[in-house]
């Protein structure tokens, strides 16, 4: 395997990994606020990408407008789902909320199929697919574009959490909900904002990845890799989600290069099991080990 190939495969893996990371981030944001897993995250991404695509088709709008439409639709969907459905169940056990988000994911996928069919559609990209040659190394602008855009989004999120009032409130709720409430933070507002922010991140990830994996109702399955990425990095940690996503993307691409075909498809899961057993807090986490 030449170095050029290796570089290409790793860059490609980082691009996919960026999407996993974004997926993991949106899952973690919701988890930190409400301590529930959102099984519908992938389907929300899919629906908002479809809405953006419809704007492209119907309005003949440029791609940037489609992105904005997707983001707006996603924010609205996240807001409505949280207010209308999730908040009513928040007093129930987390298991109940889990089943609710599962039900929502089935409904969203099925409804999207009825609206747009279960067919696959090409989706335009901001970036070209033709390779750029840097010496012997070829890199595709589409991979670099996805990585760059994702990193920019992650930095923006980092700034939001670090420096804004809302970000501080979200971190406080993640740390200790009761204490946060006692300090005068509106926990309900944090719930709402968390769902909206997570949905927006998902919509952007959707528009970035749709040109690569194509637009279809199956797109939402990327959320499973997002879960894996989140766990790899230590669920609950945002930097962990980024590292976990990148790690997963690169591992997935390196495994078929070096391993016999019989085990390569299990690699992400084997890695996850191993990490869970060796470092249950994830590669970046520092969860205290429990003795049992």
């Amino acid at each position, binding site marked *: *395997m030449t170095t050029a*190939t290796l570089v290409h*495969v790793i860059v*490609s*893996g980082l*691009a*996919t990994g960026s999407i996993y990371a974004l997926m993991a981030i949106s899952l973690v944001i919701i*988890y930190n606020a409400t301590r529930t*897993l959102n099984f519908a995250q992938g389907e929300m991404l899919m629906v908002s990408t479809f809405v953006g695509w419809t704007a492209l088709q119907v309005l003949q709008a440029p791609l940037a407008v489609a992105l904005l439409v997707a983001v707006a639709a996603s924010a609205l969907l996240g807001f409505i789902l949280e207010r209308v*459905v999730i908040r*009513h*169940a928040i007093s*129930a*056990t987390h*298991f109940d909320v*889990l*089943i609710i988000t*599962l*039900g929502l994911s*089935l*409904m969203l*996928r*099925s*409804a999207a199929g*009825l609206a747009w*069919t*279960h*067919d*696959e*559609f*090409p989706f335009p990209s901001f970036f070209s*697919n*033709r*390779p750029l040659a840097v010496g012997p190394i070829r890199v*595709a602008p*589409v991979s670099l574009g996805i990585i760059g855009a994702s990193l920019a989004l992650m930095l923006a999120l980092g700034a939001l959490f670090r420096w804004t009032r809302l970000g501080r409130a979200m971190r406080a709720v993640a740390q200790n909900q009761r204490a946060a409430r006692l300090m005068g933070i509106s926990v309900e507002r944090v719930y709402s904002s968390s769902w909206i922010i997570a949905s927006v991140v998902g919509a952007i990830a959707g528009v970035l990845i749709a040109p*690569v*994996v*194509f637009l*279809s109702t*199956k797109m939402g399955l990327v959320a499973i890799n997002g*879960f894996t990425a989140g*766990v790899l990095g230590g*669920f609950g940690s945002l930097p962990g989600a980024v590292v976990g996503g990148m790690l997963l993307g690169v591992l997935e*691409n*390196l*495994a*078929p*290069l070096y391993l016999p*075909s019989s085990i390569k*498809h*299990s690699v992400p*899961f*084997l890695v*996850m*099991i191993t990490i*869970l*057993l060796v470092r*249950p807090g994830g590669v970046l986490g520092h969860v205290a080990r429990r003795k*049992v």
Partner: protein
Amino acid sequence: MRAVALATGAAVVVGWPWAVPRYFVFLASLVVINAIVAIGLNLLSGYTNQLSFGHAGFLAIGAYAAAIVLVRAPALPAPAAILLGGLVTAAVGLALGVPCLRLEGLYLAMATLAFGFVVVEVILNLDWLTRGNDGMHVPAARIGPWTLASDTARYYLVVAVAALLIVAAVNLSRTRTGRALLAVRESEIAAQASGVNLAVYKTLAFVVSAFYTGVAGGLFALVVGFLSPDSFDVFLSVDFVAMIIVGGLGSIAGSVIGAAVITTLNDSLAGFQSYRPLIFGAILVTSMLFMPGGIASALRKIPGAGPRPPLTRRRSMISRASLLLLLAVTLSALPAGAQGVSDTEILIGGSNSFSGPLTYTGEQITKYGVDLYARVINDAGGIHGRKIRTVYYDDAYRPQDAVANTKKLVEQDKVFAIIIPQGSPPVVATLAYLDENKVPLLFPYQSSPETRGKKWVLQGMTLSDRSSKMMIDYLAGQRKLKKFAALYQDDEYGKSFLTAFEKDLARYNLKLLAAESVKRGVMDVSAQVAKLQTAKPEVTFLVLVPGPAAQALRERQKIGWTDTLMVSTGPLTDEKYLALAGDAAEGVEGLSLWPDPLTSDLPGVKLYRDHMVRYFPKNEPNRYSLAGYFAGLLFAEGAKRAGRNLTRESLMAAFESLKGFESGILPPITIGPDHETQKQGFWVRVEKGRFKQLTDWLKSE
């Protein structure tokens, strides 16, 4: 009072097969099997708070263990095989449970989820033992001199095993162990302080849970009769979790209710096709919103139920559950005529994908394909005065659902014939049943040679070995190309082509230089494409579905790999993947099994387009709906020739006498002893975004 209730319950369970139609015996077996899994899962999740998303993996281990034992030692009594399946699974549970002690909540859920995926991968790769993607037929179970050949016999076996396990679970929950487990659920710290050894009890819960699920797996193998990795996807694990949460965590009766509700719901919704996940999801959401804690806890809260001793409560819940079940059963039991042919109507149907990975294909071949032709012929007066009516059920590509749907079609709806079901694992799973009941299986949309030359089957799609022969004869024979590689989908479809390629290349003293696999729903194929490039093949076969194939073409463009000819297989060569790949598809060649549905001038294809515009103006013509339309057309031809006295025998006889039938779509059709209706394809190349025909129809004899 208690004795009366128990006796009534037992009488209902024992008398069930004699009181209801045959199909519900099978369905009841599935309900009971799922109930065993739910109890097992509840012992883990409800009692010790360890949520598992990997129980489909345990079910698979139990099922495969029992099936393998039965294949290798057919004389072994069924209960022994099932017990063995349970013990093997329990051992795996122990191996997984000990390291998982350190995980809780979400982390445990993720680890078990990963475990489920790994189990499926292991089954795929141990193909010498499990037959991998091809799936495995389970021999009929025997107990001493008796063979459990009927649904009823298997039902009694399932019920007997379940009764034992339920009694054991109820007793377990009342012992010191059960109370210790409950204490762990309430508070681990408090339990430890009271002298409960946390590690021992949590591991015990894991092992017992795995054992229950493994036993259920053995029963599953016997009842369904066919195993394939597709049966045990992650969504099945999710279904199990839904069962215990909807039923009620920490309640054995709740597990049974949950299993009954989810299983019958899934079954009765199968007829809603594309709406099934929508309705199912809505029911999950509303039931959790209005019945937090599940049905068991909702029943407890019913006014008047009051604070009663737990035993009475459990019994009344069981009777409520059976009421619910009866309701579901009567709802889905619809009256139907005999054998699907009346004076005015012919009823045909099939199990297909209306959810799951192949939804688009499923919808197109049925609702826009077969149904399109049915509307055409019905509006023209039908066949000998009879109109065609169709009924389809959703199987989401799962073999066990396909078996259930097919039994329902034959026994409840009493369809005349099964038409165009999709996918090798679901179709192969139903072969034995349809043959036994002498039901024609018409034009299955799959390419595994297992359907060739069967008395009651007429194969539709060109089989993989024929496609391979045409491709290799053309490329290695006529075009004298020598270096071949393949990028294939890691499933039955991909592997059957790979085997056929190797066989056909050997005739030219050639070998595949490299073969790389991709998973369905893959995100990135760069590593596989890079690896193929290093083998420097002249020809690279794409044995994929449109999405990943288009990804592979774009990946090739990304790395500027130009000195290989990409060739697509018959099932892939369609407009969809051209549209997805865009300019990356230029110059790609392939074997086309159908004339171009958008541009072909053949009279039959023109008619197809006219009909599509007339009946479904919003649906673009495509190869899938053309295949379904053709299936409808061919069925109508057979039924016409069979005459007014249409029976299953006369239909098959009419087909067997078909010689040189001109459809205007495919070359003249003659059906020989191999019972194949399609054997040919022609070569195409992509020029300026369209397929250009390079050869006439190629021969595969």
